[in-house]
C-alpha cells in the first residue's frame, strides 16, 4: 500500500513539475511581452494559457534532424541527461507536513525524505551540466562546443560558492535534511518577523540567488546559450523533440530552483500559524501548505523571468571575476560571520 501511495506521489509530483514547466514557459512569454509593451500570446485558451501546448505540438511536428558527424550515442542521450536531473531535484523538496491517510498510513508530502537533502540537490543539480556538455560536444559544431566550454567553466566556478552559501543555513539548522530546514524556520523572531533564512542569512541568500541564476543558465549568466554570439549555444544543432527536452529542462530547472529557494530561504510550505501543531490535523492544512509553497515558488519564478528580460548578459571575464573575486569571498565571509555569531550566541547565552 505504501508503495502504491509512493508511486502515485511520484507521478503527481513529476507531472506537476512538467506542467509547471509549461506554465513557466507561458509566463515567460507573456511577461517578456508585457515588459516590452506588447501583449504576448493571448489567443489560445484563457489568457493564452494553452500556448505551450500549441508550441509543443508544433515542435513535435518538426523534422528531427541529426547532423553529419555527430556522436550518435551522446547526441541522443544529452537531452534526456539535461532533463532528468532537473526533474530529480524536486524529489527531495517537501511541500507540506506529513498527512495520515485512512488513519494508518503516514505519508510525507515529498517524494523522498533524504537525510542529506541539500547535498543531494547540489550533487544532482551539477549533473545537469553533463547534458549540456555532452550535447555541445556531440553536435560537432563550433558554436555548440563554445557554449559547452563556457558552461563547464561557469558551473565549476559557481557550484563552489553555491555550496558555500548554503553552509550558513546548514550551520543554523544543524541538519542537511530539508524537512528540518523548513521546520527550523517556523517560529517568529522578536515576535513579529518570520524566522525565514532570508532574514537570518541575507548574505547567504544573495549569494545563493546569484548561484541559482548561474546554475539554471538564466539570463545574466546564460553564456552557454548566448544566442547573439553562439547561434543557439549548446543546442544549436538540436531540433524537434530533442530541442523540446532541452527547453523543458531549462524551465523545469527554473521551477525546481525556485522551489529550492522557497524551501531553504523562505520557510518552505510554512507560514507562521499554519502547522499541524497549531491548527490540528484538519483536512485543508496540506492543501493550504501546498498553496503557500507554490505561491512562494512562483514568486521566485517571476523573479527569474523578470530578471531575464531586464538585465543584460555578463561578459565572460566579468562572469569569472564575479564568481571568484566577489561571490566566493562573500560566501566564505558568510560562513565566518555566521559561525562567529553562533559562537557568541551560545557562549553569552
Amino acid at each position, binding site marked *: 500500500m505504501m508503495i502504491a501511495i509512493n508511486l502515485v506521489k511520484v507521478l503527481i509530483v513529476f507531472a506537476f513539475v512538467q506542467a509547471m514547466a509549461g506554465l513557466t514557459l507561458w509566463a515567460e512569454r507573456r*511577461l517578456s511581452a*508585457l*515588459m*516590452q*509593451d*506588447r*501583449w504576448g500570446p493571448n489567443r489560445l485558451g484563457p489568457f493564452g494559457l494553452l500556448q505551450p501546448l500549441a508550441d509543443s505540438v508544433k515542435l513535435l511536428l518538426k523534422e528531427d534532424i541529426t547532423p553529419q558527424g555527430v556522436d550518435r550515442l551522446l547526441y541522443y542521450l544529452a537531452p534526456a541527461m539535461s532533463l532528468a536531473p532537473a526533474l530529480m531535484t524536486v524529489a527531495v523538496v517537501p511541500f507540506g507536513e506529513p498527512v495520515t491517510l485512512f488513519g494508518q498510513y503516514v505519508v510525507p508530502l515529498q517524494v523522498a525524505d533524504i537525510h542529506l537533502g541539500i547535498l543531494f540537490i547540489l550533487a544532482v543539480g551539477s549533473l545537469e551540466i553533463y547534458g549540456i556538455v555532452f550535447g555541445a560536444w556531440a553536435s560537432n559544431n563550433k558554436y555548440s562546443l563554445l557554449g559547452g566550454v563556457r558552461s563547464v567553466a561557469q558551473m565549476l566556478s559557481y557550484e563552489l560558492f553555491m555550496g558555500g552559501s548554503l553552509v550558513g543555513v546548514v550551520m543554523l539548522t544543524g541538519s542537511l535534511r530539508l524537512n528540518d530546514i523548513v521546520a527550523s524556520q517556523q517560529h517568529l523572531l522578536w515576535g513579529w518577523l518570520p524566522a525565514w533564512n532570508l532574514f537570518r542569512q541575507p548574505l547567504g541568500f*544573495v549569494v545563493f540567488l546569484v548561484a541559482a541564476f548561474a546554475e539554471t543558465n538564466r539570463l545574466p549568466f546564460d553564456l552557454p546559450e548566448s544566442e547573439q554570439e553562439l547561434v543557439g549555444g549548446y543546442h544549436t544543432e538540436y531540433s524537434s523533440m530533442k530541442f523540446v527536452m532541452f527547453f523543458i529542462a531549462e524551465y523545469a530547472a527554473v521551477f525546481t530552483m525556485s522551489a529550492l529557494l522557497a524551501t531553504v530561504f523562505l520557510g518552505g510550505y510554512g507560514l507562521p500559524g499554519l502547522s499541524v501543531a497549531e491548527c490540528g490535523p484538519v483536512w485543508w492544512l496540506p492543501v493550504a501548505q501546498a498553496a503557500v509553497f507554490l505561491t512562494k515558488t512562483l514568486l521566485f519564478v517571476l523573479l527569474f523571468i*523578470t*530578471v531575464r*528580460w*531586464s*538585465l543584460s548578459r555578463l561578459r565572460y571575464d566579468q562572469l569569472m571575476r564575479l564568481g571568484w573575486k566577489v561571490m566566493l569571498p562573500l560566501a566564505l565571509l558568510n560562513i565566518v560571520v555566521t559561525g562567529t555569531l553562533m559562537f557568541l550566541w551560545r557562549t553569552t547565552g
Partner: protein
Amino acid sequence: MTHLPGPIFNAPGRATADRGLPTPAYDTPRPGPQKEKRLSARPTFFQRLIVPGLLRTWWSGVRHIWQKKLTVQWPEQVREVSDNYRGVHRLNKDDRGRMKCVACFLCQTACPANCIRIEAGPSPWPDRPKYAVRFTIDELRCVFCGMCEEACPEDAIELTRIYSLVGTRRDEMLFDKEQLLTMYDLTRDEKHPLRW
C-alpha cells in the same frame, strides 16, 4: 455587391473608436527624454555597489508590465491610417452610376509595377468613344504608389484607405472591374484631403 476574396476589417464605419475599444497607444504622445545625467569616468561609490544599479535596471523593465501596450489587437482593434493613405484601388462612378473610365490607358502606362490591364471597347454611352470592357488590377503586383491616380485625367481611378486585403489564392487577388467598382460603393462617403 460583387464578391471580394476576404473580409475587409478596416472598411469605413468599422473603425476602432466605433466599437468602443481603447485607442492603441501608438498615437498617444510619448514622454520626452529624461534629463540627461552626466556620466563620469570614475564610478562613484554608490555605482560601485552594483546592487542598487541592478535593482534599478530590473525595475525599469518590470514597471513596463502595467504600462500602456503598443500592440494593435487585430482584428478586434483596427489601426487608423492617415486620411491620404494609399490602399486598395477603386474605380469611380459618375452621378449616373456609370464608371468614369474612358479607357485612355494612361494609368496602365504610368504604372511602374505593370499591374493594371485594360481592355477597351466601344462605349455604350454617347459622351465618350471608348470605355473599359475589362479592367483588372493585380493587387499582389501593385506597389501602391498612386501613380495611376495622378495619371488619370478623368479622376476615374483612386486609392482608398482600405489596407486589409486578404485572399487565399493568387488569382483571387486579381481585382476585376466589378470588384473595383464595389470598392467605390464601399468608400463612397469617405473624406479624403486631396479630393473634391
